[in-house]
């Protein structure tokens, strides 16, 4: 595989002048979106853009996610190790992962084994005093010698706090993220860029903050540098493990976006209105989920949810069977909203056996019974309406085949509407049904994403061919689009497909997106 990548290097579209803004008739932009099936290039008019204010913290895209670290220090290479190279086209793409397939339980692994070393990505969390806090594979105790080496490296590569550094070794890339009072280390054998790795480490960091708050973390380590944080994190290892899987398989975190359960617009509006109706004074967000898909989100007027906090909530709910019974009530910090305090989340499945889970986020830890009553009122109201039936039917097909778009060469795509922070994507077709293949495709999208959002040389579009698929990525101020074609496709096919696809998304946007989000 390495060879064919080498033969067909990345191609930047703007230099060919093949697809530019003019390509999609600019004048149509001025036409009211209701009359225009063709999407605008301007943010707020693209398919899937919400009609009112956005539900999420306004996110341009990847940049604002890393902004807080970049302000302080951009990714830098360690002195004497050589500059960090732009991933070369001859680099092997996503090598197969023997260890994971062998099905060894992640925690029980022998850290001296070949399998352990062969894992494609290791993630470690340490305290600044060098105490192990989390290791993705193997137990933290067994890793104490490795931890020593890493701490020495951390001391070597940096003097500033909150800095990112990376070093590259024999087929490995090691990225350090110092988020005082924690140090996070990612070791990757894959082709991920530093920025991708840093993004994942940030998620792990925020996962920990969401359980404890930064205020508590700081407090603990200020009073006892040597504190063993595993005591407080016990029982949360499965959350971090499933978060790392989510990061590898779900385009949402990559795109800073979430996806919706396809549902007729009218039914969704009824669900939203019922949620809006079941309000309470301390309620800040009412979120209805179907698995990792958003059905509706109603929020307090001035408050926006950050997609990252939403991903952390998805992960918390999705990876904890403990919410399956009864009603859950848990403190949760939404770190992108506020790292200092806890919200209190009422978590319950609407009916036994459905994937519909309602998360009500309140500011008051005493308010359990008020929220429990909100849930009851929401359900009662919804059950009286035909939308409830529509919702249950929608659960039966939470995704759609790419064939609906009617482009034979198109295998898969991911489309994000920037202004709404929502994305849509069809189900993965046969060649990508295994988890390995799914992860490989995600890797390819990640690479395209890295190219498009390169900090100094961003691209507007990329076309790339390999033995196994042809890929096309395009970003405008309104949307971001990644397409995967069969290897038989051509660039002309890809370019034509974009127009057709955008028209299709425009036609279906009512079902695929939340066009009219509500506030209380």
């Amino acid at each position, binding site marked *: 595989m390495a060879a064919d990548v080498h033969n067909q290097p990345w191609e930047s579209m703007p230099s060919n002048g093949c697809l530019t803004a003019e390509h999609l008739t600019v004048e149509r932009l001025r036409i009211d979106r209701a009359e225009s099936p063709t999407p605008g290039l301007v943010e707020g008019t693209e398919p899937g853009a919400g009609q009112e204010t956005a539900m999420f913290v306004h996110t341009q895209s990847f940049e604002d996610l890393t902004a807080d670290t970049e302000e302080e220090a951009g990714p830098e290479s360690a002195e004497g190790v050589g500059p960090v190279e732009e991933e070369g086209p001859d680099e092997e793409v996503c090598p197969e992962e023997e260890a994971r397939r062998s099905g060894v339980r992640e925690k029980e692994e022998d850290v001296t084994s070949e399998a352990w070393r062969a894992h494609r990505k290791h993630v470690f969390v340490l305290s600044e005093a060098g105490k192990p806090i989390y290791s993705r594979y193997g137990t933290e105790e067994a890793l104490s010698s490795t931890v020593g080496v890493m701490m020495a490296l951390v001391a070597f590569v940096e003097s500033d706090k909150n800095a990112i550094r990376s070093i590259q070794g024999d087929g490995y890339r090691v990225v350090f993220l110092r988020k005082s009072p924690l140090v996070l280390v990612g070791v990757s054998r894959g082709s991920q860029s530093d920025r991708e790795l840093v993004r994942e480490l940030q998620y792990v960091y925020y996962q920990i903050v969401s359980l404890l708050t930064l205020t508590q973390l700081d407090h603990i380590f200020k009073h006892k540098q040597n504190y063993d944080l595993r005591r407080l994190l016990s029982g949360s290892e499965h959350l971090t493990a499933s978060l790392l899987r989510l990061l590898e398989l779900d385009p949402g975190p990559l795109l800073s976006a979430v996806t919706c359960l396809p549902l007729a617009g009218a039914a969704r509006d009824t669900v939203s209105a019922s949620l809006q109706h079941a309000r309470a004074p301390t309620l800040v967000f009412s979120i209805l989920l179907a698995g990792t898909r958003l059905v509706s989100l109603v929020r307090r007027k001035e408050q926006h949810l950050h997609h990252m906090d939403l991903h952390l909530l998805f992960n918390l709910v999705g990876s904890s069977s*403990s919410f399956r019974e009864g009603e859950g009530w848990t403190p949760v910090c939404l770190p992108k909203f*506020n790292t200092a305090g806890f919200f209190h989340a009422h978590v319950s499945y609407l009916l036994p056996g459905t994937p519909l889970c309602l998360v009500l986020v309140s500011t008051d830890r*005493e308010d359990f*019974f008020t929220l429990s009553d909100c849930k009851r009122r929401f359900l009662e109201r919804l059950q009286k309406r035909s939308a409830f039936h529509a919702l249950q039917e929608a659960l039966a097909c939470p995704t759609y085949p790419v064939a609906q778009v009617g482009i034979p060469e198109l295998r898969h795509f991911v489309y994000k509407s920037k202004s709404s922070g929502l994305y849509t994507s069809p189900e993965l077709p046969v060649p990508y049904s295994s988890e390995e293949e799914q992860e490989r495709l995600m890797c390819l999208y990640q690479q395209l994403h890295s190219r498009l959002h390169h900090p100094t040389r961003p691209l507007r579009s990329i076309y790339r061919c390999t033995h196994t698929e042809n890929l096309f990525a395009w970003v405008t101020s309104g949307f971001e689009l990644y397409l995967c074609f069969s290897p038989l496709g051509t660039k002309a096919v890809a370019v034509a497909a974009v127009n057709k696809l955008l028209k299709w998304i425009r036609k279906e946007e009512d079902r695929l997106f939340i066009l009219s989000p509500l506030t209380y």
Partner: protein
Amino acid sequence: MTAMRVDAKVVMLGKESVGKTSLVERYVHHRFLVGPYQNTIGAAFVAKPTHVGDKVVTLGIWDTAGSERYEAMSRIYYRGARGAVVCYDLTDSSSFQRARFWVKELQNCEEHCKIYLCGTKNDLIEADRGLRQVDYHDVQDFADEIGAQHFETSSKTGSNVDELFQKVAEDYNSSSFEVMPEEQGVDLGQKKDSYFYACCH
């Protein structure tokens, strides 16, 4: 307007993985879930009506997470509770130390709350007596000292589980004649924790 009528608030306390969730699961759903153990996140609430004589008493059971992470939060779960089932694992002596901690906490903060000491996983002891790490008579002495009830249960076989909760309901029923019912559940008017607001405004 009110969602459900709960007569008696009951809280499950104890070190993580001693089997609190399994006890509630057995009592409420009459089953024992096998498979990988999953920690409770925060706490889970379930209301369960039960018959005491010809009356129906609804227990509002709070199944709390054992992780130390949630310790600071525990007060909201046991405040105003009529019964506390303090669990320990019969095969783990350290879990009994933790039970003593909870007993002390309850004695200090919640004097009207009846305490039920519950040794869990009795089926393991029955299969192999050598596994027992907490002596029955030691706990009985401790229970007498603090005026608590004492049970040994197995959520796997169901042994003594219904008896435990039935006793909780009966005790509530007979004591509710004497004690003026206190505020049930939580005080909605009371706004604590305004620190959160202080941070974001």
